[in-house]
């Protein structure tokens, strides 16, 4: 089957198909290599398991889908026409069992009438048992390739690029446009999905040839332009952003530098689309048999790859282009048995071929592997020809996908029977064959509808289109969804126009009136890993590291993610479980002293004469009376009156304040402060600086915390809710006396660059006093027992200050954000959920459980956080309960059906420990 121009370099490449070894030539696509090896049967169809071969020579291929590569590199549903053979390539056919040639699934083809359009939908009607019956073997039988089970070992890159002119498609028109732009001194990017430029010049030699393409490429590069091959412009987005998917390695191939593919985001000044057109197949029974190919594809295989896909060829066409294929085949030594030209009379010059006018193919016969004969109708009279190849050309569909994605309109070109680009919303224009496709003969022949495939990949026939019409599906969008037309991985590149013509015929309207479905990105399938980029290899985002990460890591703690942060959850000693370690740490805080890293808290330094004005807008509590060196608890409301964050505010100097708030809400608070300062109150003389990361924070808590701090600083520690500057280990620190644990406690803030010596000195003092480090788990135990709130737990965005019993702290002067929202009547109605404590009467209270009464009515609340009494034992929790303030003493059931756990609980005040706050005071 080797044609005259097949390169004979002598350097054969070895590849396997379904385990059998074959050889290919450098530059072959897998499809070309398979054809060169005489392989006609490449895959089985999606629904009916019909034998399918190679139909096209490009990315539009609907039939020849294979899995390429092995292990985690396996790429299913790869078009054999869109992968270039490399040494060792391993390809597998798909959707067949036990093998491609003997496929038991093909029995589905016999039951084809059952699996017609809308089959899935119909099984949902009537008895559910019907679907239950079908589902089992449909899931097994229908489908394409299987997703690999292993992780992809390769990396994916994402890169931005900017240019004056982006040219998509390196055919003659695209190359010329890119060359012109480069000559004009513009930043140019030229992209081509093939691995060479100007491939169509090999198929159809013109005045311009491959040498011109190469010279143009050199010129474009010399003027600073970029040329990207194996790169597909797959999406056109707002404001002339085009995404490109670049293959740095072929499917399944080990990439040279670890990166398999790159996703480019190109922002272009102008986009020129030279995307060409896709040849259309013809609809007639058994038009899907191996050996039926598109005419231009046949020519490509003959001229570019030197592979002649048949020796006795019938050509069916409605245009002039197919005659070029006849010439190419003749040059390659093949015999043109007949040309069936749909046009009523000979067009153009005498070709010397046996040509029939007013002629259409009607059927094909053959085996699973090849074609044996073609029957047709000429002037109404049936005829038949022995042939091993049928080359068809039903006209040309311009590739308008990107133009449409950019928001452009389409116009109907009647001569070409095709939609061409019309108006553009963005700075894009279409040139070449995509703008002006070749004319065709428009009349569609009358053929039997059964087994006349329009969508080869999803097994949709003319009969399915007719059935959808008969069942009342009138719009093209309904037709698409009911028949699954154009919804396969090829997105209907070869099929949509054929089906649309049929629909228009049924409707009795012209094609443009029948409408079109939407073109959505991507143009060709994109590997999921490419969207993930480098995140495909990790947690999906960068982990944020504490300034003291190394110090903690040396102690081998149990880590806990907190937003993007990772913080120590507990520091277990040898043999300790998490629960045991956390309880030991919490007891140390209750009885002696403990220290923990609180660096992730949101922190803002707010300075200027109007700092108080800003704070009293953001905070719902009053700040104005705060003396220098004093601080207080505060909370912040959304405009609708709900609490969204809380923290502390400290006056550290005459006109300088430090505001802390929750870790999880840090970015939200930064935005909120900026919004209030810049958008609402640009007139304020105030500076808000986010110092969350600038200051590392160390909390020391426990009855011995005061003496530990005195030792560390050599000074009298500040009283509760006071702040002083001090030195620890010779480093300047800011000490805040604040407590989350319920014990006398201090937060020490230090420039993160100097945090390590301060931590080390604190640790020495704490451990020397009989204390230990504690993590987030112990912190939870401590704060729950104390009844302190956590943002995201008790403060869940649905609670007002009243619901949380914070209303007495509200700034009576008003003026804060949320003051208006709080006046809404619904926020003070009965029945609202309110903060309560819960103690177990029997059992241990499950995390996240709901609160129900014994009579089985709807849940009346839920547990927000549960813990154990640190010194005395016993299960307790915080929760939200309808009218909870009035229900202290009532018994409820806390139940978690998902965990299969429940407990009997009593409603109490949410302060289980030192409710008078005496332990803070000296």
């Amino acid at each position, binding site marked *: 089957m080797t044609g005259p121009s097949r390169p004979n370099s002598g350097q054969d490449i070895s590849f396997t198909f379904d385990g059998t070894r074959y050889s290919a030539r450098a530059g072959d696509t897998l499809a070309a290599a398979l054809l060169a090896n005489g392989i006609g049967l490449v895959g089985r169809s999606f629904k009916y398991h019909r034998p399918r071969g190679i139909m096209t020579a490009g990315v539009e291929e609907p039939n020849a889908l294979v899995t390429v590569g092995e292990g985690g590199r396996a790429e299913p549903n790869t078009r054999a026409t869109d992968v270039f053979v490399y040494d060792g390539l391993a390809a597998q056919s798909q959707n067949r069992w036990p093998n491609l040639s003997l496929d038991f699934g093909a029995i589905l083809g016999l039951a084809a009438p059952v699996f017609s359009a809308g089959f899935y939908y119909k099984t949902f009607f009537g008895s559910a048992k019907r679907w239950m019956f079908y589902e089992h073997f449909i899931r097994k039988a229908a489908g394409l390739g299987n997703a690999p089970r292993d992780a992809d070992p390769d990396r994916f*890159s994402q890169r931005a690029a900017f240019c004056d002119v982006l040219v998509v498609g390196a055919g003659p028109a695209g190359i010329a446009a890119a060359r012109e732009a480069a000559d004009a001194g513009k930043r140019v990017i030229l992209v081509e999905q093939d691995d060479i430029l100007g491939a169509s010049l090999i198929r159809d030699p013109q005045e311009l040839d491959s040498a011109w393409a190469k010279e143009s490429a050199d010129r474009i590069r010399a003027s600073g332009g970029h040329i990207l091959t194996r790169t597909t412009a797959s999406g056109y987005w707002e404001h002339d952003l085009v995404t490109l998917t670049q293959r740095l390695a072929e499917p399944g191939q080990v990439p040279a530098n670890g990166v398999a593919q790159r996703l480019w985001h190109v922002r272009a000044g102008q986009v020129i689309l030279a995307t060409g057109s896709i040849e259309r197949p013809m609809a007639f029974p058994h038009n899907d048999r191996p050996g039926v190919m598109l005419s231009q594809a046949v020519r490509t295989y003959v001229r570019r790859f030197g592979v002649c896909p048949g020796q006795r060829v019938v050509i069916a066409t409605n245009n002039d282009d197919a005659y070029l294929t006849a010439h190419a085949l003749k040059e390659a030594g093949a015999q043109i048995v007949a040309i069936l030209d749909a046009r009523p009379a000979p067009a153009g010059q005498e070709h010397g071929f046996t040509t029939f006018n007013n002629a259409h193919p009607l059927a094909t016969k053959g085996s699973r592997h090849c074609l044996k004969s073609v029957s047709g109708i000429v002037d109404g009279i049936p005829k038949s020809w022995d042939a091993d190849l049928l080359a068809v050309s039903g006209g040309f569909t311009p590739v308008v996908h990107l133009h449409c994605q950019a928001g452009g309109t389409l116009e109907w070109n009647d001569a070409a029977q095709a939609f061409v680009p019309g108006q553009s919303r963005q700075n894009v224009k279409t040139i070449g064959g995509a703008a002006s496709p070749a004319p065709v003969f428009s009349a569609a022949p009358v053929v039997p509808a059964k087994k006349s495939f329009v969508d080869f990949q999803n097994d949709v026939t003319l009969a399915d289109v007719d059935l959808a019409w008969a069942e009342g599906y009138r719009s093209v969008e309904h037709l698409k969804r009911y028949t699954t037309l154009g919804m396969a991985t090829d997105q209907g590149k070869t099929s949509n126009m054929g089906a649309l013509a049929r629909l228009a015929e049924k409707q009795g309207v012209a094609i443009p009136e029948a409408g079109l479905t939407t073109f959505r990105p991507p143009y060709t399938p994109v590997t999921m890993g490419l969207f993930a980029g*480098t995140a495909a290899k990790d947690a999906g985002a*960068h982990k944020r*590291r504490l300034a003291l990460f190394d110090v903690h890591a040396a102690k081998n703690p149990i880590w806990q993610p907190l937003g993007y942060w990772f913080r120590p959850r507990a520091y277990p000693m040898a043999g300790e479980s998490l629960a045991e370690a956390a309880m030991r740490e919490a007891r140390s805080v209750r009885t002696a002293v403990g220290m923990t890293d609180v660096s992730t808290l949101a922190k803002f330094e707010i300075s200027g004469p109007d700092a108080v004005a800003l704070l009293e807008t953001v905070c719902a509590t009053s700040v104005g009376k705060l003396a220098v060196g004093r601080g207080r608890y505060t909370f912040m409301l959304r405009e609708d009156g709900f609490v969204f964050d809380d923290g502390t505010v400290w006056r550290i100097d005459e006109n*300088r304040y430090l505001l802390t708030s929750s870790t999880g809400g840090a970015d939200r608070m930064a935005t909120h402060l900026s919004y209030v300062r810049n958008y609402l109150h640009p007139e304020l*003389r105030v500076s808000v600086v986010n110092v969350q990361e600038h200051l*590392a924070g160390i909390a020391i808590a426990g009855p011995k915390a005061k003496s530990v701090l005195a030792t560390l600083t050599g000074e009298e520690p500040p009283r509760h809710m006071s702040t002083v500057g001090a030195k620890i280990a010779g480093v300047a620190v800011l000490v805040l006396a604040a407590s989350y644990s319920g014990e006398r406690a201090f937060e020490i803030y230090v420039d993160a660059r100097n945090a390590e010596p301060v931590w080390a000195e604190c640790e020495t003092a704490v451990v020397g006093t009989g204390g230990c480090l504690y993590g987030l788990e112990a912190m939870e135990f401590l704060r729950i027992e104390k009844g302190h709130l956590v943002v995201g737990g008790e403060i869940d965005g649905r609670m007002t200050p009243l619901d949380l019993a914070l209303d007495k702290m509200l700034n009576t002067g008003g003026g804060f954000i949320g003051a208006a929202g709080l006046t809404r009547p619904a926020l003070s109605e009965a029945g609202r959920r309110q903060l309560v404590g819960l103690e177990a009467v029997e059992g241990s209270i499950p995390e996240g459980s709901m609160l129900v009464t014994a009579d089985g009515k709807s849940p009346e609340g839920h547990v927000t956080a549960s813990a154990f009494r640190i010194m005395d034992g016993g299960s307790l929790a915080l929760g939200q309960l309808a009218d909870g303030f009035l229900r202290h003493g009532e018994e409820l059931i806390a139940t978690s059906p998902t965990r299969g756990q429940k407990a009997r609980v009593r409603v109490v005040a949410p302060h289980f420990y030192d409710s008078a706050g005496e332990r803070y005071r000296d």
Partner: protein
Amino acid sequence: MLHPISMTAQGNAIVTDVTVSTLPSAPLWAFEIWNNPDAVATRFAAAAGFALPEMGTSGGSDALRLIRYEPTVWLVEGDASALPSILDNDGALTAIGGGVTRVLMSGRGWRRLLMEGGVFDAESPAFAVGSSAATIIDHVNIRLLVLSEDACLAYVPLSYAQGILHFWQEAAKALD
């Protein structure tokens, strides 16, 4: 090089044409003006000997450098001791150096490296020596300062520094 910075061996990754390394931490400040900008600018120029830099630019020398990333805030590196009196009651100086890691990219490949995972046109000739820009790279907010055609400095949030450094080192292996 405009900005002679001592290189450390910490986290070095030598690649084809760009080397990414972290620099020793340095004291940095946010210099914010809230009032009388013209008066502050005048006082500043008189005291510092150079004008307050415009948006997207930087000014000064190793002794005192101001880099403008925001309409009302400048990043200050060097000796900032004179700045509070220049600001007087029209602005504030706030220390931020603890939260920032400085990453140096040296070698002609830095522009291309910045396109990886980025959205900002670091390859534009307009992004010239002395230019500054704040942008997002691989989900991390980054502030850039062009030191020379062969070097660019990135100010990176401390918590993300390890992650973005790893990202750059991996990306630098496949810049092609």
